[in-house]
């Protein structure tokens, strides 16, 4: 492996050169350097060519990806290739990770190590989502990014916890390490990370593709929500030492989901898997059922794995079921008491929340000050889960009066206590009351 020296100039394919400033990190395939190119700072990934199985094909694929461009702005995509050195070594440059993003690994560990440059001592800094909304938004963003990628006919191949950066304040997601992305059906040597790889890849009977990506995606989602490994329970812990053959067994030949309803042999162990035990009690059944399907029938039948669009719908629902109670308790509506089908009650302070039922779905959205619904929830053709369409606010001129503000760009109709429907223009609002009905156009809602 040819390492680059600090200060070295690396020639770029289409002229110019990038000057190596420092090392950012190293991974299984090579090293990432901070470089200066055209007056700007970039990240340069420089490959360890000895570890590559098909360097020529790999470079060609990278070139194709650069030409195609990223499926969306959620990807830290390769920008320019370097020239090849005499022995065929090469690299590519990409944008630097923007400020404010933490790695998925740090989120899972709940802290990151910051090394004091003078003493070399490591200090732990907490890393945590600052709201439940940001966390569920991050999940939706991850799912959506892979939906976009798969729609572009490509697969990520080695989806794992090293592949994302997340903004814990907003839930924004950046997919990194995009250099192994390849057209579905092709593979240029990457196998993946055990624990994230689909069982058929672990067993050596399939190569990474869109279907195996779906399995890995389910693992990523499970880890983010349940903070544990879906296949690591009592059966695995009994082995004590994770040897190569025990990994083949527990993640390949005999992978058993920790909450497999038909096989209790691998349940989480208290003291080791406390997170999973706790969160399995918190998430609503439709989320748990999706994971059960992913990790039971989805193990042996790749086509039965949950598709990204389905995940996206489930998590948009989950986001709409968050309740932030005035007493400080924030949780999903399933963790609130339901005195009647239309009302949620905080088990801690007793506060009650009315809810909105939409004509196209059989679950209800709890209403609380600050709650929002999104464009995709009021128009059937929209896939926009980030644009706020409506928000529950307090009337600025009549304190204490709550109503829904139309944040969308279209006119709605709302039924008032006099029984008539009134036009609600963008930017306007209307009070909520017992018999409220809203007409968004195709979709309708009522309290």
């Amino acid at each position, binding site marked *: 492996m040819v390492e680059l020296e600090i200060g070295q100039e690396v020639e770029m394919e289409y002229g110019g050169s990038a000057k190596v400033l420092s090392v950012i990190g190293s991974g299984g395939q090579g090293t990432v350097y901070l470089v200066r190119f055209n007056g700007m700072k970039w990240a340069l990934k420089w490959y360890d060519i000895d570890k590559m199985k098909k360097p020529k094909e790999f470079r060609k694929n990278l070139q194709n990806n650069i030409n195609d461009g990223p499926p969306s702005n959620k990807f830290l995509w390769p920008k320019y290739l370097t020239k090849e050195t005499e022995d065929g070594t090469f690299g590519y440059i990409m944008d630097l990770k923007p400020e404010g993003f933490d790695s998925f690994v740090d989120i899972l560990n709940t802290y990151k190590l910051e090394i004091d440059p003078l003493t070399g001592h490591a200090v732990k800094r907490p890393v945590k989502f600052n709201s439940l909304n940001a966390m569920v938004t991050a999940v939706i963003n991850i799912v959506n990014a892979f939906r976009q990628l798969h729609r572009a006919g490509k697969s990520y191949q080695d989806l794992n916890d090293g592949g994302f950066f997340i903004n814990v304040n907003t839930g924004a997601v950046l997919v990194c390490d995009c250099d192994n992305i390849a057209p579905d059906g092709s593979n240029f040597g990457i196998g*993946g990370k055990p624990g994230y790889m689909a069982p058929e890849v672990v067993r050596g009977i399939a190569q990474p593709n869109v279907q195996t990506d779906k399995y890995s995606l389910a693992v990523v989602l499970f880890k983010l929500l349940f903070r544990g490994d879906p296949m690591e329970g009592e059966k695995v812990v009994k082995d004590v030492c994770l040897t190569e053959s025990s990994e083949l067994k527990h993640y390949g030949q005999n992978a058993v989901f920790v909450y497999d309803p038909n096989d209790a042999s691998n349940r989480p162990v208290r*003291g080791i898997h406390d997170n999973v035990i706790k*969160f399995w009690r918190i998430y609503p059944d439709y989320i748990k059922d999706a994971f059960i399907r992913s990790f039971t029938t989805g193990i042996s039948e790749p086509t039965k794995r949950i598709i990204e669009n389905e995940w996206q719908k489930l998590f948009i629902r989950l986001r709409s079921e968050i309740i932030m109670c005035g007493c400080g308790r924030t949780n999903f509506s399933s963790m609130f008491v339901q005195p009647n089908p239309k009302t949620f009650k905080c088990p801690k302070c007793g506060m009650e929340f009315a809810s909105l039922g939409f004509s196209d779905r059989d679950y209800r959205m709890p209403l609380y000050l600050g709650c929002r619904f999104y464009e995709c929830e009021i128009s059937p053709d929209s896939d926009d889960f980030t644009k706020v369409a409506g928000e529950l606010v307090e009337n600025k001129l009549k304190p204490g009066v709550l109503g829904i503000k139309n944040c969308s760009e279209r006119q709605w109709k709302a039924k008032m206590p006099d029984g008539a429907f009134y036009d609600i223009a963008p930017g306007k609002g209307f009070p909520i009351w017992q018999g409220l009905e809203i007409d968004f156009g195709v979709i309708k809602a009522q309290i």
Partner: protein
Amino acid sequence: MSNENMTEPVVNENTSGLDDFEPAAAENTAPAAASALDFDDDPLSATGVSRKSLVIFFLIDTSGSMKGKKMGELNTVMEELIPEIRRVGEADTEVKVAVLTFSTEVRWMYSTPIAIEDFEWARLRASGVTSMGAAFKELSLRMSRNSYLNSPSLSFAPVIFLMTDGYPSDDYREGLKELQSNSWYKFGLKAALGIGDEANDDVLAEFTGSKDTVVHAYSGTQLAQMIKIIAVTSAQIGSKSMTLSDDSGHELGEEDVFSAKQKLLGQQIQELVSNKVEDNDVPFDTGW
């Protein structure tokens, strides 16, 4: 064997070194039906995902012949090495380090493996003879679920890195035999570094089980290079799950993956070492 500086670990019943990976007390819990407020139900409060642990054992010869430049170089490179290994382990594996020194006596640097974040190198001094066999026995004793490898969650097989500059002065085979019956040793990643002309690579290969994971350093510069290569590479491989050969085209069996990591370690060490040696062998008039 005397261990005057060694504090006895609290639990140490397993003295045979035969540790068949007996399971930790696993308590299977069925979540009881309970009302929403019976437990911490904050969806945002989580502890870190349970990480796998990896212990890196350094077995270091501190006999009299190591005195002077060798020991100075070794101390310096080990101090510098700790931050590099820290970077390797911080992701999803908790890396711990244990250092066993052997001369006339066998002695642990600290009485328990120390997390890499908190590890500080205590400079070593050299004197006495090379009791390698005693070191093997002591290692075997501590590589046990009841002793140094007592992490409650899953462990990767340990990394064991032996450095010596001389021929063992005791019956190393007897010690090795004991070590070889230890399951952690069997599955562990083993590498060895011979320092100077006296160190016998055949003895080291007996320890590691293959010649690929034995390297030799003849100068101070090489010593520093080799220690870094072996320690960083073995920590990288040891702290991760195995990566697969994905072009076999047939279903993998246990025999395909058996000691896959040890083989990979051998390959990578040989590659890295040959690169370094080439660097040093370039004639003065080429490469300009």
